[in-house]
């Protein structure tokens, strides 16, 4: 899976949790909490959805360090 495919998969899961986000103008480096109003429950749900979809288990400790989608993608790329 290349970076674009990975990005599409993650954004698809993100939009299932927070459909209010406009993916067309999505900024991978924007803080998910500030810019896109994700709260900690949303973040937990996203980690679970990504796990289900890609089979990558993200330990919560690692996950807590990711604040934007770019960081999540970097992490996933290494694990896949």
């Amino acid at each position, binding site marked *: 899976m290349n970076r674009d495919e990975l990005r599409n998969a993650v954004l698809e899961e993100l*939009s*299932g949790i*927070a*459909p*209010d*986000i406009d993916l067309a103008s999505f900024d991978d480096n924007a803080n998910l*909490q*500030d810019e896109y*109003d*994700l*709260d*900690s*429950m*949303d973040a*937990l*749900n996203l980690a679970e959805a990504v796990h289900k979809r890609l089979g990558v288990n993200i330990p*919560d*400790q690692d996950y*807590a*360090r990711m604040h934007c989608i770019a960081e999540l993608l970097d992490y996933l790329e290494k694990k896949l």
Partner: protein
Amino acid sequence: MGNGRLNIAFEALDRHMDTETAERTAIRFLARDSETPVDISYRALNERANRFANVLLDLGVKPGERVYGLAHRIPDLYAAVLGTLKHGCVFTPLFSAFGPEPIRQRVEIGEPAVLVTSKRLYQKKVADWVAETSSVRHVLLIDQLDEAPAGTLDATALMDAASGDYATRDMAPEDPALLHFTSGTTGKPKGALHVHDAVITHHMTGRYVLDMHPGDIYWCTADPGWVTGTSYGIIAPLTNGVTMVVDEAEFDAERWYRILQNQKVALWYTAPTAIRMLIKLGEELPRAHDLSSLRFMASVGEPLNPEAVIWGQKVLGLPFHDNWWQTETGGIMISNYAALEVRPGSMGKPVPGVEAAVARRTEDGIELIDEPNETGELVLKKGWPSMFRGYLHQEEKYRNSFSGDWYLTGDLARRDADGYFWFIGRDDDVIKSSGHLIGPFEVESVLLEHPAVAEAGVIGVPDEVAGETVKAFVSLKPGYPPDEALRKELMGQARKRLGPAVAPRHIEFREDLPRTRSGKIMRRLLRARELGLPEGDTSTLEGNRE
């Protein structure tokens, strides 16, 4: 202040100015992107609050008028709260994770003269509609700005320019000080009004329940956008002269353990949702930190499950002391004390001066239940200082919250033979998610605004971390297919309008929803069916035979 007059802000700040507390740290602020603390002394916070009071004075804001706060945890928010009280205005906190709709609704009900917020929150959640409301004369932005957008004022600059001296107004004990919004089953949010006398409860419970001593390092993780973050995140710690840790960042387990360790937190007041998230992350993290400064840990927001109390003892070396109170009670009413044996899963015993009982409602009032372990409604003998004095513009609702001398909490509980109280549940349809009350009606109203939606019923479903999460059942008008695209559209709209803390996390389509013959959605039945519980009395269900 003498003559039987007082002011919450005087007790929190001015009173310390002639004592050694003046030079102590009031706020130890940790900015989101840094863990290097910025210490603000009681003297400095008092001066900053005076500046804010002078800003209100210069703008012509009158004592008794309302000031709303909608901001992240930044030091000037605290100065604004205290400056508002100093000037005799009534302060209302709003949760910064609310969407525009809950904010607007609360502004329309409470009609503040001033809204204190940040540029980002203003632009995202307020700018679109604030001109349509008649009451708000000033929007004050308290984050450092290059330039204030049209219609707002740069309050940081105004405070910098204002005088640091202000004679805190002496108020009558029954003068209003705080207006806290809470949610009910039906209708709009209710504004619970509290008076300056409430500071007696705040101070006393801070001392006796949370074990505050001058100079202690104390961390209340509740956001000041809610009642806990005001009563125990601002007022009680300051009247007791402790140092409060204020962390701007949101929940982050590693950071939290670092804060407990590096800031040498002695007293920690947090919430079940946070504790359960920490438990999920395992024992390795806490064991890797030196948490030996902790002396007392307490929890509030929803009942703390016994396992969590025991986990605290096992992993952190101390049990969590659960306590119980509501927006309406203004302060802690029932608690597991440091001096008492902790009963895991129990909310504890009433604090000194509070009389609690279990009651059943009868035709002409209530009847107290004396036998132990009987479930009934938790009731409190009225008259404690932080009791709410009204629901704004809802006299009848306020009167109906009392029966004779007793305040009816709406919570179901039992009392064991030793006098410990145990929470059973709510006796209405209000949802409790991450410790926040959510009124199903508020959520249903927003869903019903969508042209595809015919009916909506909103309930809480159990969640291992949040306690409950919001789930909506929706039936559609003819011609609208119940597909994934529509489900997402509805969820998106709800999140945009209500914010993630209030919007449903799940939406399920149904052909039709159970209604009473008078046309009301039976949320109780939706919930029973969802959870596989007994359906109870369905005699009023539409379509049932007599």
